[in-house]
């Protein structure tokens, strides 16, 4: 709209805006925002004041290697978990009880117990079965903390991803299946060409959340000697007792999660363009 036109219409039709009064909500809102700003400034001031070039030079490489471990662990687990989740979701939706029940039990176990307990169970619990594992040649795998961590995280995320997949496939109306069937497509074709493309749109946001949950959940992995970002942070803190070590970790985690969230938002906007009316 052109500027002059807007001004004329405004001049003629718009009543004078009511004064913005200082309601209780407004005061509270400004007070809370002021509190956040003060805390933010305080934090920056703390980090500037506590800046220690020597500390930074000593621990920044550790943080970097920790970050790499975190990212690798999450990416590998999410990928392997995705592969594993498809058969689990299929079994879970199957009408055959022999398939459905074990899948249900699997999902219930891994979603019902803490990741911390699962990690301990796999690393130390299975570690005590060394002779048996050696007999079947699996010990070289379970010997390494890294593989145990990947296994625990993969099994865990597979359970969550299976539920995401199941929910997404369920959200596609029956008519889509029936329509495909009437065209003579068999089940696998229907799944691949009709159902999954629609289901993945529904599943995108839960998948994104699952990746974020894994990034946050992976912070426990240092307890089995895999030193990720959180582990390196704790190590730096236990040597320096300088609280900024934790603040830096918080900044890094927040930056990763926020970036990821924005990327997911962007992808979602892109792939749902055709659905906008």
């Amino acid at each position: 709209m052109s500027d002059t036109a807007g001004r004329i219409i405004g001049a003629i039709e718009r009543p004078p805006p009511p004064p913005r009064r200082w309601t209780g909500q407004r005061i509270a809102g400004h007070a809370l925002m002021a509190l956040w700003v003060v805390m933010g400034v305080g934090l920056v001031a703390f980090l500037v004041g506590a800046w220690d070039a020597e500390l930074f030079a000593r621990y920044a490489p550790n943080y970097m290697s920790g970050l790499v471990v975190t990212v690798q662990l999450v990416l590998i687990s999410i990928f392997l978990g995705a592969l594993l989740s498809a058969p689990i979701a299929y079994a879970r939706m199957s009408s055959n009880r022999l398939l459905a029940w074990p899948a249900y039990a699997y999902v219930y176990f891994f979603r019902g117990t803490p990741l911390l307990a699962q990690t301990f169970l796999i690393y130390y619990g299975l570690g005590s079965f060394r002779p048996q594992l050696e007999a079947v040649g699996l010990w070289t795998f379970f010997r390494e903390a890294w593989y145990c961590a990947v296994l625990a995280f993969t099994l865990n995320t597979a359970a969550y991803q299976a539920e995401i997949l199941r929910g997404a496939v369920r959200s596609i109306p029956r008519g889509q299946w029936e329509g495909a069937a009437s065209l003579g497509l068999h089940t696998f074709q229907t799944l691949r060409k009709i159902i999954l493309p629609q289901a993945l749109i529904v599943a995108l946001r839960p998948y994104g959340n699952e990746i974020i949950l894994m990034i946050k959940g992976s912070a426990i992995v240092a307890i089995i000697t895999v030193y990720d970002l959180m582990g390196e942070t704790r190590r730096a803190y236990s040597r320096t007792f300088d609280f900024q070590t934790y603040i830096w970790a918080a900044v890094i985690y927040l930056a990763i999660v926020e970036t990821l969230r924005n990327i997911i938002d962007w992808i979602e906007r892109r792939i749902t363009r055709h659905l906008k009316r």
Partner: protein
Amino acid sequence: MRISSRVSLALSAAALALTIGAAQAQEKIRIGTEGAYPPFNNLTADGQLEGFDIDIANALCEEMQVECEFVTQDWDGIIPALQANRFDAIIASMSITDERMKQVDFTNKYYNTPPAIVALKDTDIAGVTAEDLAGKSIGVQGSTTHANYSEATYTDSDVRLYPTADEYKLDLINGRIDAANDDITVLEEWLATDEGACCKIVGTITPVDEIHGLGAGIAIRKGEDELREKFNAAIDAIRANGKYKEINDKYFSFDAYGG
């Protein structure tokens, strides 16, 4: 019972949200320890603390005529917890090092024993130098002088940090690591048990003062000189009156106090 009292303590604290107290009354001293470092401090099956540190602490408290209360705390948070006033002193085999002295004050040492390397009996590790251990994985408890030493010395080895000593022992038995580095008394105590039968001492490490410090002392918050002097006097007293020897002989066949 210790644990149930801790639960009720936690619950009452939750109700109050914050426990506000005036500066500690001197009749009671809260002592922080780890409870996972036999023979110095560890938990029994019924949740009781036992060990050399615990006996020494009790003897010191008796000497100072104060009541002692033990608080268990994970190792890597034990200094922050002292600073945060969760307890008043740490008696947990903590070595007196420069790095820690920046954060807390120490009493004089109450024992000093050298570190050592332990490995499976059929190991091919011949000594304790960096070359001997090159390419091997070494388990060590995180945030300890031993961790600092291992990370600084065994640069060609895979040094793995564990939350407690029990965990690297578990992994050493399981064969996940090739060797472990800790205080010799801790390792010998363990070798004497059934599960320690797997392993042997490869050799002792000559302590490096800058890393290993000057023996184990009692850590207290900075500036509490009065408490420190009381502890120092009590240590001297139990050394003199035979109480220390009595406790020492219960655990060791040599004088742990060191030269």
